[in-house]
Each structure stands twice: as C-alpha cells, then as structure tokens.
C-alpha cells in the first residue's frame, strides 16, 4: 500500500462522501451505498475500486452479498505521519477556533 494512492483516493469529494457513509455504517452492499446518492451505479463502483486499491475500503463476502467496510488503518497512518508530528494539540485549538468563527458568521 502506497501513501500516494491514499492521498489520490482522498482527493475527491465523491470518494470522501462514500467513506463518510461507510463511517456512519460499515458493512454496506453496493446497492445500499448507491441509495440517495446523485451518482450512477457505475460511478460508485469505479470510486469504490479506487478506494479499495488504496486500502481505504475492504470487502467481505457474506453469503451472496459483498459488503464494503471502511478500513481506517491508512488514515490512521497518515494521522501519525502527518498530523501528530506537527502537534495535534495546536491543530485542535485552531480547528476549534475556525469552527467557532465560522458558526458566528451564520
């Protein structure tokens, strides 16, 4: 698994929204993942392939169903390699500040 593949896979809003859906509920079929999405089934299949290639999504066969799971291990490794190193505490304070300022604007 190459870090480049993970960053490329994450550099797309549709793929990130698929990861969010799997984060909300892991273990979904392709049909379930397609529900309520403004994407064609073919597009979802293609995006899932890229996510699987980057090891962000894994699949498990249960009977006749192919279930998709979020694999958080590469994201964790990015966190360790690129975030923790640059002081997570300060980043948390900054993102909290950003959140508060932005919510005041509304």
């Amino acid at each position, binding site marked *: *698994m*190459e870090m480049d593949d993970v960053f490329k896979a994450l550099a797309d809003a549709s793929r990130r929204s698929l990861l969010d859906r799997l984060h909300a509920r*892991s*273990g979904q079929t392709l049909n379930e993942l397609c529900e309520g999405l403004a994407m064609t089934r073919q597009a979802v299949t293609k995006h899932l392939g890229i996510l699987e290639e980057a*090891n962000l999504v*894994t*699949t*498990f066969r249960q009977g006749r169903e192919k*279930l998709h*799971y979020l*694999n*958080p*291990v590469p*994201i*964790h*490794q990015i966190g*360790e390699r690129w975030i*923790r190193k640059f002081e997570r505490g300060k980043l948390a304070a900054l993102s909290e500040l950003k959140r508060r300022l932005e919510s005041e604007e509304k």
Partner: protein
Amino acid sequence: MSNSRFVYVTYIKTTPERLWFALTDKAFTQQYWLGACCESDWKAGSPWKLAFSDGRIADAGEIVEADPPRRLVIKWRNEWSPELKAEGYSLCTFEIETVQDAGTDAVKLRVIHSIDRLESAFIQAVSGGWPRILSNLKSLIETGSVVIPKKA
C-alpha cells in the same frame, strides 16, 4: 445485517512467518499492543488472554483455529468492563497472505472482528483500538519502533 463486524487490512513488508511470530510472541506483542500483551500456546482449544502490564486481564477466550503462518481465529470476550463482557464472545480472525508490494515481498494482514449482535458496544470499542495497534505493529516490524508506545 444480524451482526456487527469490522474488517481491517494492513500491508507489511515482512514474511508470513515473522508476522505470525509478531502476533503470537508474548514479549513481542507487548511492544505494540498499547502496553498489554497476548498469551496463549496458540493451539486450537487452548486458552488465550490479553493482559494489561500490571497483570489484570483485559480480554480472554480461546483459540478456535490456528494454522501457522496463515490463519488464526480467537474466541474473544472483554473481561474488565461489565457492559462489554455482557455482550459475550466475539470472533477475531487473522488472515495472512503473501503479496507483491512495490516490487518487494510483503504480507497482507486482514483482521476480521465480529460479534453476533447488532450495534455492539464491544465492536465499537475495538474499532478505535485496532487501527492504532495495527499501525504500531506495521511500524515495529518495518522500522523497529512503534508510533504510540502506551495507551494515550
């Protein structure tokens, strides 16, 4: 879906034999298991336990299947939290497979952890721990040091 399950995958530049050792050697597990260690004789039917560094039992169970260096299945129950213990036994399967990763030999480690109940608090709890443990394991095998020495 009538169960709760997580599937975790990591690729490690090592051999299946070395990874098997890393998963089953007590002293080695202590280096990446956030301060705890795994103990068993790793034969089907044998007891298995995960103990904190002070000796308290975190989780315990039994080896269901052991096929070194390919497959290990553990019947696994939390022992320190009454709420999690009440959920009963989960099943944790480790699958080790040789792959080619960027031209070098690597192994794919797949950990499948499931329990026969919906909305399991136990599976929710392990879902946060496994990525940290697997990151540590990968880092320890590949570089000789871990990223998170103790439970944060």
